[in-house]
């Protein structure tokens, strides 16, 4: 169940939308959203877990201050979801716990 929904009566119904992937799930979202708004609309209640205790976190301030919405976007980690507009074909992944060098080392 999503915490937020679109206000359909003030939004033009023929509004453009884009397709993005959130945690391997494909979603069609309004093109005017940023990534943090999109994940809230799509019903995700968390977008990362903390490196210290592993506690779940979700966007808090929506204005680039709290850094609780850090996600991986198109392979680049630590992106502020609330400051990044959605783009067609964007692939977003949650950041769970501590960053690890394992994958990087395996590639080397």
């Amino acid at each position: 169940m999503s915490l937020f929904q679109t206000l359909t009566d003030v939004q033009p119904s023929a509004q453009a939308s884009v397709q993005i992937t959130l945690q391997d799930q494909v979603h069609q979202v309004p093109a005017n959203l940023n990534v943090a708004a999109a994940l809230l609309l799509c019903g995700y209640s968390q977008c990362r877990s903390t490196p210290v205790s592993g506690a779940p976190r979700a966007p808090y301030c929506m204005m680039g201050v709290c850094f609780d919405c850090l996600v991986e976007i198109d392979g680049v980690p630590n992106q502020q979801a609330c400051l990044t507009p959605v783009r067609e074909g964007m692939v977003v992944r949650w950041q769970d716990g501590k960053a690890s060098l394992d994958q990087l080392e395996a590639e080397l």
Partner: protein
Amino acid sequence: MSGHDLAVIGAGPAGLSAAVQAAELGLKVVLLDEQASPGGQIYRALEQASPALQAMLGPDYSYGAQLLGTMRQSPVDYRAGASVWQLNREREIGLLQAGKAQFISAARVLIAGGAQERPFPIPGWTLPGVMSAGAGQILLKGGALKPAQAVVLAGCGPLLYLLAWQYLQAGVRIAALLDTTPKANYRAAAPLLPGALGLPGYLRKGLRMLRAIRRAGVPVHKHVTGLRALGSTRLEAVEYQQQERWQRLDTSLLLLHQGVVPNVQMSRVAGCGHDWNENQLCWTPTLDEWGNTDIDGIMVAGDNGGILGARAAELSGRLAALESASQLQRIDQAERDRRAAPLHKQLQRERKARRFLDVLYRPLPQFRIPADDATLVCRCEEVSAGEIRRTVELGCLGPNQTKSFCRAGMGPCQGRMCGLTVAEIIAQQRGVPVAEVGYYRLRAPLKPITLGQLADAAE
């Protein structure tokens, strides 16, 4: 490197009006803003907002259209999606735009980064489902998103009541408004009422909003003295204390707000001097009447220099532009003073009116300095109020020492969400004024930037 006369950081009311005014006086202006469209938080996404959405948000939102239109018509070099991650005393600006980092410089720099919401450290405020009221309003403005279920609003201050009013226009069900304004504040603010009456529009609007909230049947619980957010992996309920009694409300969404404070990251990283403002319980950069900091050529305007609101931000932005034009010898001092006189006068009225709001909505100590040791203060590194207090017992005198003992302020937000709380806890434990304990020493980069991007910028 490039030859700008004035670089303005932030395209809210202060930055927009400064950029427009400076360009009008013949300055070559670059306007940098990290959002996708101009307007700051107050006029956020206004250019894209449908007439129906604008009507829902109220006239103070639509008011910004003229300013935005003027900027679009002006020769200002406006850059959207441009994050500033560095500013130094030589006025070199590290910029990140579309994944590319670069440096630009300017003869003068105006920091107009606006405000952020004051941290509201209550038990459970890190749970998904707890957000700031500002976040709720941003989702409404920028995405036309509203809460899907009944929402609980808690705290105090104009933005909280404005959001409640806007939510009612949007048909959102407000389960409760938990008002933390203490009874004593009404008495303390009463003598300042004449100052507020100098700008009666504010009071009228405020009272009309509060009346509309009551009329709509929103349960308003006044003089709340305690708040707790409960849940395991997400918010399930809010508990609030009223006249010593705790009560519980089940909800999946809680929006918190207790005023706004200047966003001083940029002026701090540049090395500008700051003072503790006891009236507004926050740090403000040390400024003269034009907005000059103690660093040559670096200025601050708008709420970034102390909270006065959007209209005052426009005035201080224009003053900074006049001063810049005078310093760069496009106009003489007499011309600057002639044009500035009515602006200074109007700004003085705004200041007087603001004192009333500062006193009325001064947040209670327990909502700034958590009494419960287990309450998280630093959200990033998950450091509790008790751990901060223990560092003081160990001999830490200020936030920088505390940071090296327990990592508070060392996470990605760089102390934006804990700095004020940590400074106030230390001051309380030591029994000294906050001014004496100081603040974190901030260093670039202010924004996430990869080593690759950094290397490209250096070339």
